[in-house]
């Protein structure tokens, strides 16, 4: 048996090796048909013809086609892989990849693809790249074949499984084979084994596959599939609950970031600062400007753009905060209503200023590579950007706590808040402490903007979306208490996200607001109320 299999493989290898010279001209002939193919279905026929050759060399033109990089030169109807460079396109041979000169954009026509074609190409490439050297490519191929089962896949998969050395790839190949067995006319025993193998995956893709197989299967296989689906679904329900909690924590971290600066300006200083959201916006725009500068001058540094933007965003927002405090707020201490109106006005001015300078449209802030995509923990898909934002929010919180509790400046801040006149008598320059505290709160809002630019629009309206939530968090957590803000943010986030799948996003938000209103009725000073003399001050 093994001997026969080995022999077959050898034949297969020999065939691919020896035929490569003759096949290349044949392949060129097939590729040339792209030039005359009209409409997506005809292009699809050519794709099938190419993959039917079974030659791994077609991977290059097909990938190029899927990426929209395959062109026809209008003059001689030859097909090339093209790379756009300004107004011209650099051409290269579709099989060998040798450079074949340049052409003006108007002289070549792009071969169009759509989703359906891209899927056809992806599936076809799956089979062709099973023997690739890179285990990651083989894994991707196995994954594609799992999702697109086909009875014809069983044989190549058997060959691949026999020669596979990496355990994870091998496991996935076996699952892909099982998926293909399910849609083939193999005996029932094979199919039952396949259902068991796929059922063991216990993820959403397995449910998807089993559901589609369930309908047309014989009764024994059908029962096994139904049982496997029920089994997987009950496990998934648990994971779903976990997923909701994670989403809640992630939303909580966003709320915490947005509110943490306000916890200083409103919580500690008692200033109702309606321009808080605009400080967040300034931070986001600073990120945009930094990325813009990096894109034009130092493209290699792009992954560091957020790190570079952080101190700058802090400085920009803190500086604007300082101006607001010195220019407006210091005349209004102790007059909350006037402060509210004045800072509201300031927020409008800042928004319109940004609109006049950068324009009203969204600005593109890119995600560095370490903040893109997601990874799986069991059945939880955790996106990198959310994870980093959580880490970042907690770090900022920790640093702020340190500044407030462990540094002389923090001591002065708390002294001024507790009893201004006493603090002044002790030689603290209270106006300076006020100004610097406000600048600190604003600066922290600015660095929150750097993080929020990764998940939200960078537009002049950015801050509007966060101002209400921020006040909600600070008031709910207890004014003047940083820990209250932390607990408030995470509990609001989790309650919101646990409600959302059942009540929907709109109703969920309303329920949360009603709950807060009821809570504030019961405990007007929030979760962690400050006690003692500070309250009266």
């Amino acid at each position, binding site marked *: 048996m093994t001997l026969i299999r080995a022999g077959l493989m050898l034949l297969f290898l020999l065939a691919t090796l020896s035929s490569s010279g003759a096949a290349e001209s044949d392949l060129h002939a097939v590729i040339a048909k792209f030039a005359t193919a009209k409409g997506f279905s005809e292009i699809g026929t050519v794709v099938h013809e190419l993959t039917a050759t079974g030659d791994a060399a077609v991977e290059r033109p097909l990938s190029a086609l899927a990426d929209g990089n395959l062109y026809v030169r209008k003059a001689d109807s030859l097909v090339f892989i093209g790379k756009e460079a300004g107004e011209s396109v650099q051409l290269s041979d579709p099989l060998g990849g040798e450079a074949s000169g340049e052409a003006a954009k108007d002289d070549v026509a792009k071969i169009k693809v759509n*989703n359906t074609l*891209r899927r056809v190409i992806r599936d076809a490439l799956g089979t062709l790249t099973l023997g690739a050297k890179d285990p990651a490519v083989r894994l991707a191929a196995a994954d594609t074949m799992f999702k697109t089962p086909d009875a014809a896949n069983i044989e190549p998969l058997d060959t691949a499984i026999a020669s596979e050395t990496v355990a994870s790839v091998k496991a996935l190949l076996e699952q892909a084979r099982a998926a293909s067995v399910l849609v083939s006319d193999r005996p029932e025993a094979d199919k039952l084994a396949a259902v068991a193998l796929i059922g063991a995956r216990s993820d959403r893709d397995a*449910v998807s596959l089993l559901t589609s197989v*369930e309908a047309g299967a014989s009764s024994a296989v059908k029962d096994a599939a139904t049982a496997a689906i029920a089994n997987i679904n009950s496990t998934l329900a648990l994971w779903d609950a976990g997923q909701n909690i994670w989403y809640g924590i992630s939303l909580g971290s966003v709320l915490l970031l947005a509110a943490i600066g306000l916890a200083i300006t409103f919580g500690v200083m008692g200033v109702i600062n309606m321009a808080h959201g605009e400080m967040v916006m300034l931070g986001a725009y600073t990120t945009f400007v930094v990325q813009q500068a990096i894109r034009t001058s130092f493209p290699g540094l792009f992954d560091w753009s957020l790190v570079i933007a952080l101190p700058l965003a802090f400085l920009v927002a803190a500086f604007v905060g300082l101006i607001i405090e010195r220019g407006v707020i210091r005349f209004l201490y102790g007059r909350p209503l006037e402060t509210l109106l004045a800072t509201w006005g300031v927020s409008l001015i800042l928004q319109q200023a940004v609109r006049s300078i950068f324009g009203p449209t969204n600005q593109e802030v890119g995600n560095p590579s370490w903040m893109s995509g997601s990874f799986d923990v069991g059945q939880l898909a955790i996106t990198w*950007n959310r994870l980093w934002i959580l880490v970042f929010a907690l770090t900022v919180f920790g640093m702020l706590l340190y500044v407030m509790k462990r540094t002389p400046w923090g001591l002065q801040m708390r002294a001024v808040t507790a009893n201004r006149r006493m603090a002044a008598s002790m030689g603290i320059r209270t106006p300076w402490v006020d100004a610097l505290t406000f600048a600190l709160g604003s600066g922290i809002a600015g660095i929150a903007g750097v993080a929020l630019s990764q998940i939200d629009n960078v*537009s002049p309206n950015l801050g509007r979306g966060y101002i209400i939530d921020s006040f909600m968090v600070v008031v709910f957590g207890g004014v003047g208490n940083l820990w209250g803000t932390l607990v408030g943010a995470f509990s609001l986030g989790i309650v919101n996200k646990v409600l959302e799948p059942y009540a929907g996003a709109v109703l969920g938000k309303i329920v949360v607001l009603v709950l807060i209103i009821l809570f504030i009725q019961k405990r007007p000073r929030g979760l962690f109320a400050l006690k003692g003399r500070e309250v009266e001050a």
Partner: protein
Amino acid sequence: MRGSFSTITKMFSASVVAAGLMSAPARAADDTIKVGILHSLSGTMAISETTLKDAMLMLIDEQNAKGGLLGKKLEAVVVDPASNWPLFAEKARELISKDKVAAVFGCWTSVSRKSVLPVFSELDNILFYPVQYEGEESERNVFYTGAAPNQQAIPAVDYLMSEDGGSVKRWVLEGTDYVYPRTTNKILEAYLKSKGVAAEDIMVNYTPFGFADWQTEVSAIKKFGSAGKKTAVVSTVNGDANVPFYKELGNQGIKAEDIPVMAFSVGEEELAGLDTAPLVGHLAAWNYFESVDTPENKKFIADWHKFIKNDKRTTNDPMEAHYIGFNMWVKAVEKAGTTDPDKVIDAMIGVSVPNLTGGYATMMPNHHITKPVLIGEIQANGQFETVSRTPGLVMGDEWSDYLPDSKDLISDWRKPLSCGNFNVATGKCGGKGTN
């Protein structure tokens, strides 16, 4: 430091200019024709509407360069309703009564249009409305140059159901919670059911305006899509909420080949704020794409870049709608020989002007226009590539045939019928549609 001061200086100079603009009409002589522009320049809708204001200023400039209209120069009167719906009505009244404009180009959201309707019919003036909307309306004083649902939503769903579009069997209707998505989704649900889609294969979900945390929704889409049937999302998510929505889709790895998202409110302008590489293949249905290769469009884009002095600014579908609407109005005024709104309204019907995609737009008796419907896939460069185009032009159908309330209604503003909601079953003018 300097940045901030110059910011403030710019702010002040901007407001001085704005004040100048607003007081300009008072000094203007009678030898100009005034055109009102009613788009939000501040507040949440400024992101979309400011561009339309600029597009109108460009069109008016160009017309003046061609010698104006009826031997007079055109003069733009710009007001800022600040994304505040009641203020739209006030500003519309100001434009018509105080500035005596001959026509108004404006509004974006349906609620702003609804708020100005009574003003336009009371003072008998003309509004050109350039945005795709939910239909179920036809007013004598309004010309709808954007798409009605049958010129966008229905062909988009047809495409997804076709073999080219992936033969979709399961549908997620995801929208922002307000009138346009709700009505459109109602029409789509009825349409899908009429095509034999079972109720359990349709999921409808709404989120608030400006929604930013899409984790739950996107994972629900993923879950809904894993039932072994080809699934697609039809998105009527509006404005700012789109960027976080697409970012979440990209991060959770939902690929267009597996679950494509077809959007009705995402154009070139919205994509400008996004890295589109993870979104290649997601779809949008419009009547115009910047990437359409026609001489008219090339010229329009070149003119726009020159006017706005920034060759990175994109053009979009509502801009084309204003282009068509403005040219139609010019033609109708020339035909009527006067700018008197009453006469121009009658002259408008049947007027035909070139659109930017190589065809003609004609004003129909129901005050909607003919349009081609294009389906485009998002490309890595932030543009759309047309993957499907209706063979001919589609006439705007204001009263949807798929809603029980409106299937018997038609609109015809020609005399002697002159009715926006004529019921063919009862033979009477009136009924639904006056709200």
